[in-house]
């Protein structure tokens, strides 16, 4: 058969037209589309078996329980675990993305001495020299941990001072500790039994205390109810998130909260709304009203509302004694629904000593907030997982990142009952890192190890036979065969909760009305965040939405 040029052209045209009636071009187009989604520079998720493990968040003192989804040995997702009796499955927004911090560009991977790379041996030699030459201070940002015991032991053995940096929530309990003589670590807020909570600027619905503890209560007993069983009265100059969700928002002029507290006390005493007499603040109600921006009638009404449903608990954002003295007046100290004393506190620590200003050196644990400014003149050894910039330390010593360290979690400062948990290390650090406790053990091998302290604490809980371990199921401590089994349950993500004992003796008395001592450092989950950097996806909260004001930290 002879093929003419015309046949060839016809055949080609027919083939070209016909191919569009077959799936071939559409399949090619589809494949090209898929191929364009897989450029080599587009990151691909890991492949591997997916498992879920229980752990606790270690980035602040709350110790929220969480489930960590792991793929190919790496965490790929975090969700709250409802087994925790206090956090009840809640996490702060930053907690959901916390595991990304391990790959943050500011992650420390080597020892740095004044901006230059150095070795662990050089850091150790410098620290040993400083220890031998003069007074030393060790600063801990989260006292009560097993690692804190190591730091404290070193300080005791080497004639050094141990100082604990307290957060605002813990500081708000200081006046009660001073008035009652009971250590601040043994005090807590009994939110669960209060019927009226009067907050002076405390961000109760924005992560105050333990994220999930108050929000859970608020959901159950306050939200969307016109006459709720739990009344939240927020006294604050601006309409904050907590004020927006409060039963009543009382706007006052800036920095006049203590004045309002004093005038409320005056009304409570003058009109016999409280059972016991107390020192009367020397201030005419009209003057207080003028300064706070309220009317005398509004102040009187507020005082009556406060005592309408008792127990009434007053919470200050900070440690202003002129505000927290209202609890003493209201009889909300040492009673259910007020300030209570914890029954057992296995990790209680003696009061910290103030650091000497003529220190030779100072060691800062990784739990100390980056904003902490050490005294000048001392050589600073700073343990940290991330470099927040600012060159505030002579030595920057890399520590394990998120979920890279097994650590115990003592009772959060605001809790009314003792809690204890152990967060396992689910990841291995990619660089040579050490905790401050490990570093000090290398300097002095006679110090107890973190694990030994954890064993001792588990034995203490086991011997006391109190409370129960909350894991996938709740098991009383008495049901455990040995302390080792109890420790195993805790290391698997369980949380021990002590029994609730409401009647522990705690008495405070006031000789005169305290003077105003404002420090104003309201604390929410973002400001309580210890690392100097934020998870990468926190940008969604600050940059890519208008939801929140950005904090003064690196967000990327």
């Amino acid at each position, binding site marked *: 058969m002879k093929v003419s040029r015309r046949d060839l052209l016809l055949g080609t045209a027919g083939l070209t037209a016909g191919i569009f009636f077959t799936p071939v071009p559409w399949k090619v187009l589809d494949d090209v589309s898929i191929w364009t989604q897989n450029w080599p520079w587009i990151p691909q998720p890991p*492949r591997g078996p997916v498992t879920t493990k229980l752990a606790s968040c270690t980035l602040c003192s709350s110790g929220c329980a969480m489930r960590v989804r792991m793929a190919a040995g790496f965490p790929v997702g975090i969700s709250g675990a409802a087994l925790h009796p206090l956090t009840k499955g809640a996490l702060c927004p930053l907690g959901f993305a916390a595991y990304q911090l391990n790959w943050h560009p500011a992650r420390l991977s080597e020892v740095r001495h004044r901006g230059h790379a150095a070795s662990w041996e050089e850091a150790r030699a410098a620290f040993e020299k400083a220890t031998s030459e003069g007074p030393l201070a060790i600063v801990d940002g989260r006292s009560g941990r097993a690692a804190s015991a190591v730091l404290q032991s070193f300080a005791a053995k080497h004639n050094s001072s141990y100082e604990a940096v307290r957060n605002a929530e813990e500081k708000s309990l200081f006046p009660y500790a001073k008035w009652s003589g009971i250590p601040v670590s043994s005090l807590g807020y009994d939110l669960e039994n209060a019927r009226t909570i009067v907050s002076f600027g405390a961000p109760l619905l924005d*992560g105050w205390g333990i994220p999930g503890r108050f929000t859970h209560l608020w959901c159950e007993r306050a939200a969307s109810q016109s006459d709720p069983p739990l009344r939240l009265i927020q006294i604050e100059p601006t309409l904050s998130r907590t004020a927006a969700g409060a039963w009543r928002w009382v706007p006052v002029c800036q920095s006049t909260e203590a004045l309002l507290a004093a005038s409320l006390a005056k009304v409570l005493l003058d009109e016999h709304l409280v059972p016991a007499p107390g020192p009367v603040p020397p201030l005419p109600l009209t003057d207080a009203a003028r300064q706070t921006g309220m009317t005398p009638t509004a102040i009187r009404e507020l005082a009556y509302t406060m005592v309408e449903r008792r127990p009434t608990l007053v919470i200050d954002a900070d440690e202003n004694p002129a505000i927290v003295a209202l609890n003493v007046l209201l009889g909300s100290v040492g009673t259910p629904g007020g300030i209570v004393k914890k029954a057992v506190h296995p990790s209680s620590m003696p009061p910290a000593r103030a650091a000497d200003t003529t220190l030779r050196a100072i060691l800062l644990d990784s739990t100390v907030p980056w904003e902490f400014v050490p005294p000048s003149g001392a050589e600073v050894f700073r343990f940290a997982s991330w470099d927040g910039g600012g060159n505030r330390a002579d030595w920057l010593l890399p520590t394990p990142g998120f979920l890279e360290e097994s650590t115990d979690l003592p009772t959060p400062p605001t809790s009314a009952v003792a809690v204890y948990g152990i967060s396992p290390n689910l990841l291995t650090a990619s660089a040579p890192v050490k905790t401050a406790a490990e570093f000090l053990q290398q300097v002095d091998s006679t110090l107890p190890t973190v694990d030994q302290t954890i064993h001792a604490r588990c034995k203490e809980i086991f011997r006391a036979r109190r409370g129960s371990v909350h894991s996938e199921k709740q098991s009383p401590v008495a049901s455990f065969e040995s302390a080792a089994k109890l420790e195993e349950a805790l290391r698997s993500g369980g949380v021990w909760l002590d029994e609730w004992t409401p009647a522990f003796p705690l008495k405070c008395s006031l000789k005169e009305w305290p003077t105003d001592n404002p420090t104003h450092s309201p604390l929410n989950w973002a400001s309580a965040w210890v690392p100097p950097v934020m998870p990468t996806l926190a940008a969604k909260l600050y940059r890519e*939405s208008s939801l929140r004001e950005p904090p003064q930290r690196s967000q990327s």
Partner: protein
Amino acid sequence: MSARYGMVIDLDRCTGCGACMVACAVENNVPALPARATDRTGLTPMLVHKVSNGVEGSDRREVFIPVACMHCANETPCVSVCPQQAVEVDKSTGIVMQIPQRCLGCRYCMTACPYHARYFNWWDPSWPPGMEKSLNPGVATRMRGVVEKCNLCHARLHTAMEKAAAAGKKEIDMADYVPACVEACPTNAILFGNLANPGDPASVAAHAPDTFRLLARLGTEPKTYYKSSQAWVRALAERSPSGQPTEAQHV
């Protein structure tokens, strides 16, 4: 029986913490973008808006409204305008699906969406070195030039379907299918469920008093319901959202 997945968001319970936004981004491998990204050029499949009653002083009230794709059931605007068939309504679930492989980035759907719940990928997705190990293996990353939105955590639906199939069941257990935002909410403000099932708690809540839908007058039958005890909040529902926080009139 076909499902009709949707959610009911109790605005009285929303504290505006933003946990839903972060959890959504983590679950769906949404990257953090350059510092110049804003609330319109960023990628926030779930975005929480703060709105007020417009009154100053002690009578001022504010609420937070989480807004994601409403998964419109009727005349779905984004489906109608897409020239690439890159948006489909899954008839078995009611989920409005975005298929990035088909999307050519014309952004007609963004213009058509009355809820501003769609986002364009202006930048290649990138993470700091090594962080790709922490990406969710159930969700593919999307590249620059395509539109993204909430797909009700479709990967989680697939996992629940696989589990049901392995157990020999046709229907999934709703306990196995919980979107990330619902799981993350610390106040349980978001109730998720099958609205086609009259006995489902979400279906019951959707038909309770005080519930409403945003821009219901458009007749697109959104499957996200809101609940509020405050009349001024319910009145906001018929206002068109803007990129900025809304200052509504006192009602």
